[in-house]
Each structure stands twice: as structure tokens, then as C-alpha cells.
């Protein structure tokens, strides 16, 4: 076995008061693909960012060729041959493919750029990836998988010794994935050390030499890939006590309150239909990009769509958030910083924005607003140093609670909550779970969209699984389990699961 080229030893990391990594050991060896897997929030991204120099660990060591180093930034790591390919690409949209590949290390002839040589080299790099992207094309004009290829070509051009790939296949089709995996094989043969992450465990089993599993920021398993199968990996990823974290599910349901039939959004959602009953928590699971958020945005009128939506038997006016709100249907976005809260405004103005008409005759009743804020702070346990502070200065968990309070102030009967606990700590998670169960118990109906399977399983009475813009299955009772959901989400039939 060769010596590791890059390793971390005893690394812990905290964001503010929240510790996300606990004493992690991890290494990458030349000519080896080391897969890092775990659920969302397990600490994969943080680990990768520490390895690639984007983050400095709170404690612990980074070892390059066995010697401790401390990267001041990603440029320094890149100079050492460590390149990270991000899920969200780091490409300049308005520049050409060639300009991106050579960005920062342009080839010059005299004072001028040698475009011909850079184009030829770009083409050669892309050909190594079996990609026929034109080096002269603008990045904004090429498809998402092609951008992925450009990112990889850019990394190859920098003669990366260590390649860190954050879910590179999330945006690729099966065929493109196959080409990428072949490339990884080739890079491995050439002696590159590769860190690979993916939610698609079959890919991991196919490509990885070694697998490390993280769970809740802790290292739980490291083993040669041939000793593991996908089931073992999934077990290690999940393997947590689910009881206790989730409250009892309500049992009694009333009539259907929300019915969606034949809903389509061009290019994103095809023919989706489901029913939500009174007092029910309906979970939506699926891989990133399966179209769950897009479906919900279409339902509440934020996206143009075709199909029929009825609320308590009455058809809902399409394409109008205002109409949905009046009908008692509200949507709580997954993107609280960009779509949920006005970070530069104070808590009061954020709280009442959705339900402002309830505080307004001709003028806004600011006393009533202040009283509502006091109630919300008490009811949702929003911890703010000062009630006049801006929403942007709250911690993530408290922002989420403020967003919940804002949504509930509109007194909805149907609440769609997208990623209710993204990026928040376990204690706040539990508060939010209790709150969601309480809503259902009070006769409201709740849709929970989540990428965290334990959350969907722990909260929902029924689970809708989406794959590639379609509803792949609706699960009830004992069928609601991790394996069935994962199989459906990956586009495999659910039946086989029960047999195995």
C-alpha cells in the first residue's frame, strides 16, 4: 500500500456553537478512489472543504505527504495539486470553455494570449474525457453535464494529484455517468488520488477502492469497498436511533383537503398527482433534482404549470401565490436566506410580511405587530439577543423558527414545509418535529419535503417518492422504510425490496 498523499488526522470542526465534525481521520492515496459517504448533514462537505483548503479545521491536522500543512485558502491547496470540483460549478459563465480551463494560468505569446494553443490543449483535455464540447463555446450556452466535464478538464489541466469530487454525478444521466466513471478509472490508473462522494451507492460500489462512512459528524466505518455491499453502506449511514427524536404520528385523518392531479411543469415535472388529507403529514422524498421543490412551487402558484389543484373541493386559481394563501395554503421555502427572509430587515417586518393584511386597516398596527413578535418569540422559542436585530444576524436554527412563525401567522390550513431542518442542530430539529406533529394533531395538514430520510420516515403518515420529475411511488405503513424509499428514488421498482 502506498503512503497517503493527503490526510487529515483528529480533525474537529464547529460552525459557531454547532459542532459538525468530531475527531475525523481520513486519507487519500495515489491511484486510489476513496469514497466518502453519509447522509445530508453528516459532515461530508465540511470534510471535503477542509481537505481542499476552503475551511480551516477548528482542531486537528492536515498532512500533505506526511508533513503537517495549514492551507490559508483554496489557491494554496490548488498549488499543491489538490483540486475540488464543486456541486455548484465554479465556472465563469460568460467566458468560453477554453478561457475557463486556462483561467489564471493563461498561455501567452509575447504580451498576447495564445488562443490557438490554449484551444488545442483544451480540446485535447476534453477529448481525454470523451467530450466533444467546443472550446470556443460560452459556458452559459453549454449543458449542465458538459459544464461538469469542463470542470474536470480544468482540474486535469492543472495536473491535479488529488481530485475531490462532490457528487459529480448528481446532474449527469446514466450514460454520462458511465463516461465519468471510466475517466475516474483512467485517472486512478495514472496515479491520481480521488475522493468521491455520491448518494448513489451502486456507483460507489462500482468505483471505490475504499469507503468511509460519516454519520452526524462522526467517523463510523472505513473498509475496503469489496468487503461492503450497498446494503451495508446504507446501514452504516443510517444506523441511528430514530425513536425519541420524533413525536408520535397522529392516526386519525379526515377528508382530502388538497388534491393535485396531472400536474406538469415543462421540463421539470411530469404528470404528478397526490392527495393530502386533514390532519395528515405527507412526506416527499427523492434525490436532489428529483423535482420535489419544483412540484411544491407549482402547487402554490410560484411556477407556471398545467394540471388541476383543488383545495377542499374548490379549484385553486393557478399561478397565484396570493390565491393559494387566501385558500389557506402556504409554502415554506427550503432557501430561507434567499427566498424566505429579508436578512437586512428586523424580526418584526419579517414576521408579518406574509400576513401583513391582518395587521393593516389603512395603516399598519405596529403595536399589534410587536405583540405578535412577542408571542412568536415565546411560542417558537426564537432566541434573539435583541428584538430589534436584523433577521440576518440570527443563527440558522432561529432563522428557521422565525420563518416557521412567519408562515404560521397567515393561519394556514395546509402547510408545505420544504427541508424543515436544513443546516440546523439536532436540538432545534427536535423542536421543529414536535411542532409539525402538533400542527397535524390540531387538524391542519402538512407536507414535509426532505432529503433526510430519517426525517421523512419519522414524521410522515405516508411518503411520496419522486424520481426524475415523476412520482415513483406512494408508500404507507410498513412500506415506509429507508430501503424502499431509496430504491424508488433511484428509479428501481419497489417490489424487489420486500423480497430481499
Amino acid at each position, binding site marked *: 500500500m502506498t503512503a497517503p498523499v493527503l490526510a487529515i488526522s483528529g480533525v474537529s470542526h464547529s460552525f459557531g456553537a454547532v459542532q459538525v465534525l468530531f475527531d475525523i481521520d481520513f486519507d487519500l492515496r495515489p491511484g486510489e478512489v476513496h469514497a466518502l459517504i453519509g447522509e445530508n448533514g453528516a459532515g461530508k462537505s465540511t470534510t471535503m472543504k477542509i481537505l481542499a483548503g476552503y475551511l480551516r479545521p477548528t482542531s486537528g491536522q492536515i498532512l500533505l505527504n506526511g508533513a503537517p500543512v495549514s492551507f490559508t485558502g483554496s489557491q494554496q491547496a490548488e498549488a499543491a495539486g489538490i483540486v475540488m470540483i464543486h456541486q455548484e460549478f465554479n465556472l465563469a459563465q460568460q467566458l468560453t470553455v477554453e478561457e475557463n480551463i486556462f483561467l489564471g494560468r493563461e498561455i501567452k505569446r509575447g504580451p498576447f494570449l495564445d488562443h490557438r494553443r490554449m484551444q488545442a490543449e483544451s480540446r485535447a483535455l476534453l477529448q481525454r474525457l470523451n467530450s466533444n464540447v467546443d472550446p470556443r463555446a460560452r459556458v452559459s450556452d453549454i449543458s449542465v453535464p458538459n459544464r461538469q466535464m469542463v470542470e474536470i478538464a480544468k482540474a486535469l489541466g492543472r495536473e491535479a494529484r488529488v481530485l475531490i469530487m462532490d457528487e459529480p454525478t448528481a446532474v449527469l444521466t446514466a450514460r454520462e455517468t458511465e463516461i465519468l466513471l471510466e475517466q475516474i478509472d483512467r485517472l486512478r490508473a495514472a496515479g491520481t488520488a480521488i475522493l468521491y462522494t455520491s448518494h448513489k451507492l451502486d456507483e460507489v460500489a462500482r468505483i471505490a477502492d475504499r469507503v468511509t462512512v460519516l454519520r452526524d459528524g462522526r467517523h463510523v466505518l472505513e473498509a475496503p469497498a469489496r468487503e461492503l455491499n450497498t446494503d451495508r453502506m446504507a446501514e452504516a449511514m443510517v444506523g441511528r436511533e430514530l425513536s425519541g427524536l420524533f413525536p408520535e404520528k397522529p392516526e386519525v385523518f379526515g377528508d382530502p383537503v388538497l388534491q393535485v392531479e396531472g400536474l406538469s411543469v415543462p421540463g421539470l415535472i411530469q404528470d404528478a398527482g397526490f392527495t393530502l388529507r386533514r390532519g395528515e403529514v405527507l412526506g416527499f422524498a427523492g434525490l436532489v433534482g428529483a423535482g420535489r421543490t419544483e412540484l411544491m412551487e407549482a402547487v402554490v402558484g410560484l411556477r407556471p404549470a398545467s394540471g388541476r389543484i383543488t383545495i377542499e373541493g374548490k379549484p385553486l386559481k393557478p399561478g397565484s401565490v396570493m390565491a393559494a394563501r387566501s385558500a389557506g395554503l402556504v409554502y415554506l421555502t427550503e432557501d430561507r436566506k434567499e*427566498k*424566505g427572509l429579508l436578512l437586512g430587515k428586523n424580526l418584526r417586518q419579517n414576521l408579518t*410580511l406574509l400576513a401583513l393584511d391582518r395587521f393593516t386597516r389603512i*395603516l399598519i398596527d405596529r403595536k399589534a405587530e410587536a405583540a405578535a413578535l412577542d408571542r412568536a418569540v415565546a411560542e417558537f422559542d426564537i*432566541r434573539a*439577543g435583541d428584538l*430589534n436585530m436584523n433577521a440576518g444576524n440570527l443563527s440558522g436554527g432561529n432563522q428557521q423558527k422565525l420563518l416557521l412563525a412567519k408562515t404560521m401567522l397567515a393561519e394556514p390550513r395546509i402547510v408545505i414545509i420544504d427541508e424543515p431542518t436544513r443546516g440546523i442542530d439536532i436540538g432545534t430539529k427536535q423542536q421543529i418535529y414536535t411542532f409539525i406533529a402538533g400542527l397535524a394533531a390540531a387538524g391542519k395538514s402538512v407536507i414535509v419535503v426532505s432529503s433526510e430520510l430519517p426525517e421523512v420516515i419519522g414524521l410522515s403518515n405516508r411518503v411520496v417518492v419522486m424520481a426524475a420529475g415523476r412520482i415513483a411511488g406512494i408508500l404507507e405503513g410498513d412500506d415506509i422504510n429507508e430501503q424502499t424509499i431509496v430504491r424508488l428514488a433511484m428509479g428501481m421498482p419497489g417490489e424487489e425490496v420486500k423480497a430481499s
Partner: protein
Amino acid sequence: MSDTTSTAAARHFPAINLHVLGPVLALLLLIALGAWLNPNFLSYGNVTNVLARSAFIGIIAVGMTFVITAGGIDLSVGSMAAFVAGLMILAMNSLIPIMGVGIPVILCGLAVAMIAGFIAGWLNGVLIAKVRIEAFIVTLGTMGIYRSLVTWLADGGTLSLDFDLRALYRPVYYDGILGVGWPIIVFALVAILGEVLMRRTAFGRHCAAIGANEQVARYSAVNVDRVRIATFVLLGMLVGLATIMYVPRLGSASASTGVLWELEAIAAVIIGGTVLKGGFGRVWGTVVGVLILSLIGNILNLASMVSPYLNGTIQGVIVILAVVLQRERKAAGAR
């Protein structure tokens, strides 16, 4: 955790106060300077003159505050004012043969001004909100269109209001109650109503929300298109109102009417502390901004220390300074 939040809050307050007081301090400083340079500065005649002349820009700038707060801009207001004035004069002149010289003709003229302002603002708003063209581009276009239309209406010359009618209409600019001219009264009313509209109504709150983050506003069931159009309609109607106050002053309109009003109005809004990118606006700040701009001109005229031709230079410096101060506040807030 609570430690970091409390320090953030503590840092927050003095910064805001300085920012709030900045324009007011500048205004007080200018008044003190003016009084020191020339004893006539604080005389009744000079004060009412300065205020009355600020009224046109001031009325427009109040509307501009809403447009900018909601993340827009309107470059067309100066040309729009000239065009509305031209239309108004043409309409009144052509109504005299039918209705004779009298108050009804003037009332019709006022209606024409308000309706023209409404339509012009609505057009800007619809092109921006519904057709989704940048506000800068749309209003740059309409700025050229209105300026050329008024030149065409006047056939390159001047449109003059009928002489008899002018005598009847004159008091709207030159008279007032208790020695306060009508333009000043109207400006004050517009400013007070604007301040209440911005601070105390759902409309004002929605403007700030859209300017701060349009996505958040949309996700919060704010009718973004309607609010945005409404800001331009409000501004258009205030341009109509300003024109109503302006026409009796000279009784004419030409290609050079209202030139650069848009820039003065935008400058006043920015000096007053409204954020150019939108998301935060204050009407009283705009009023202070308008007064600062017109006091600079007035002081230069009275003092004869600096050439009045340098008026634009000093105004320009003040606008840039105001934005620099705004940015420093933002940097302090981000830290």
C-alpha cells in the same frame, strides 16, 4: 452565542443613528453657513423663494423614493413633466373657444395633467413589471420619447398658455394661505402623506420588501408586479401634480422644460439616505435631500464667494459623499 448577537446589536445602533442624522446635520450646517454668509438668507422672502422652487423637484422626488425603494429607477420624469405641461397647455388653449376663459378650463387642464401622468407612469411600470425590461432601459427610452414629443408639439419653439387664462391660473404658484405659497403647502402635504405611506402602510412595507429581495417578496405572497407598477403610477401622478404647480409660474412649456429634473430628484433621494439598490427608503430624508440641493444653489447665489456656475460641481460632490457614507454604514453592518 448570545455573546456574539449582543455585540452585533450593540454595534448596530450607533451606526444607524449616525446614518439617520447625517443628512439632517448637513442641512443644519448649510443653514448656519448661509445665515453667516448673508443676513438676508433667513429672510422671509428668501426662505419662501427657496422652498417654492424646491417644490417641483421635491414632489417628484417623493414619488422617486418609492420607485427606488422598490428597486427601480425612473429617468423619464423630467421629460415627462415637460410633455405633461405641453399637453396641459394645448388642452386648455383649445378648450377656451368652447368653454371660455374661466375656472372650468383650468380644472380640465388639471385633470389632463393628472391623467397624462397616470398613463405615462403606468406605461413605464407595465413595460418594467410585465414585459420585464430593465427599469433603466425603459425609462431611458421614454425619457427620449417624451422630450421629442414635447419638442414636436411645440414645433421646436414654446407652447404658451393663453394670456387671459394665465392671469387666472397665476395664483396657484404665486399665492397661498397665511403667507405660505401653494407649492410649499402641496409639497408639505405630499411629503407628509408620502412618509406615512412609506412607513405605516402595507404598500410601503411591500416596496421595501421587493427592493430588498424580490424573491422573498414573491414567496411571501406579495403581488410584486402590481406593487412595482403602482410605484411608477404614483410617481407619474406626482409628476402631473408638480407640473400643475409649475405651469402657472412661467405659463409655457418648451423642449428645455424640466431638463435634468430626473437627476436632481434621484440625487435628492440618494442624499436622503434611500438605498439606490432598493430595500430601504425614507421620504423625510428625500425632503432633506431636496432642501440641501436647493440651499447649495441659493447660498452660492447669495454669497458671491464661489461662482454660482460651480453649483453643479458642489451638488455632485455631495451626492458622491452621500453614497460613500452609505457604503461605510453597510460595511460596518456586515462586520
